């Protein structure tokens, strides 16, 4: 049961703290907005991912179960 990281793009204000805490999965574009690696979060990084989710100042980063409806 994989968990995936998602960004609420409207809430995100580009603080960039998530990229500092989880550089393995999150990098920043030229304007400071997160680029998240696709796919489930590796087990050894789940704790760090939870920390990054908690530390986002605007609660834009979310950790959710993988098998949600992704059709768009």
């Amino acid at each position, binding site marked *: 049961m994989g968990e995936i990281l998602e*960004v*609420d*793009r*409207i*809430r*995100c*204000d*580009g603080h960039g703290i998530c990229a500092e805490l989880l550089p393995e999965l999150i990098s920043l*574009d*030229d*304007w*400071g*907005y997160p*680029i998240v690696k696709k796919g489930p979060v590796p087990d050894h990084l789940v704790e760090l991912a939870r920390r990054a989710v908690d530390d986002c100042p605007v609660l834009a980063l979310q950790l959710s179960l993988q098998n*949600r*409806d992704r*059709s*768009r």
Partner: protein
Amino acid sequence: MELIGPIAESLASHRQRLGPLLALASGELIAELESSGLLGRGGAGFPVGRKWRTVAQRSSGHAVVLANGAEGEPLSHKDRSLMAARPHLVIDGALLAARTVGADDIIFYIGMEHRAADAAMRHALAERPADVRGRARILTAPPGYVSGEESAAVHFVNAGDARPTTTPPRPFDRGVGGRPTLVQNVESLALAALIARRGRDWYVDRGRRGGVGLTTVSGAVNHPGVHEIAYGSTLGDLAAAAGGLRGDSQAVLLGGYFGGWAEVDAQWGLPMDPGSMRARGLAIGCGVVHFLAPDSCGVEATARIVAYLASQSARQCGPCVFGLSAIAAATQRLATRSPHAGDLDRIVRWTGQLAGRGACHHPDGAVVLLRSAMQQFADDFTEHQRRRCLTVSSPRRVAVA
């Protein structure tokens, strides 16, 4: 012509021409639509039958049908023409959808600038009996490119704010008033109403490949405007229907601002049905077919489109606001042949970073357009980075009399 005409058709004339609306059982109609292969006409091309089935499954009788006639795409005029000429067909489609998915509320979402369409739809609704008038209303969509986006339309109905929202939840799960909502383009609804009367075979067998649709032809043609085509017609047939090309146009924009450029010569025999186009990596989108004038520069044309798309951002997501405006500025510098060093590489890099990182598909559409432009006009872009222009400096196209 099924879908367009010179004046707004009255209810009497509509009934006389087409007969009454059949009472197909919901399951039957959905199956009919699915097997007809009817795809949505708003731009995304999602199968109509499957969409109705999805909403019907979630409905407890209080779903909502939102007939999308916002048509914010500047190059597209088909929806307003359809509503202005065949309002009762659109209403039929919406009523059918409501009955099929279990909706007790119908909203016609009509773009503010489409006056004739709005008048025709209001008049047509007034001709209908009280029980129809009681559960249908017309809302005016604010102008702008994104106000026709699915979640933006729902957001506007709910809160008066026509900006896209974060999904999930999708409208078919929770839309207007938290109820399952079917957001469907007005042309899709009109075609569903015709398929309901005549059966899926009418749709599938009508053209050489099946289906009819509306296109808006513009640019270097003699008679630009909305044209109804039978699928199976080629790009050449469509150009002929539009009075022929004005000059030796080399490039054509297919599908609108979210579409892509293609080479006219190579695609002259392209069958204009969604399946054939997809097989060639193209898309019918919202039916826009824009021929670039032979003396126009592809880079300049692209720069203008990207500048427009950047200005139409809902300004909710950083990557869209900053990325699109940076790309627009760099493309503009290229277009005026005064680029900074590395501008072309920068555009490529930023375009790669932009896709999928907005709450809606607005930045994605810009990426698709830009990538197809850089492929179609590859030589022009390279020359512009060297501060030269192929079209202006040494016209390699010769106008054919």
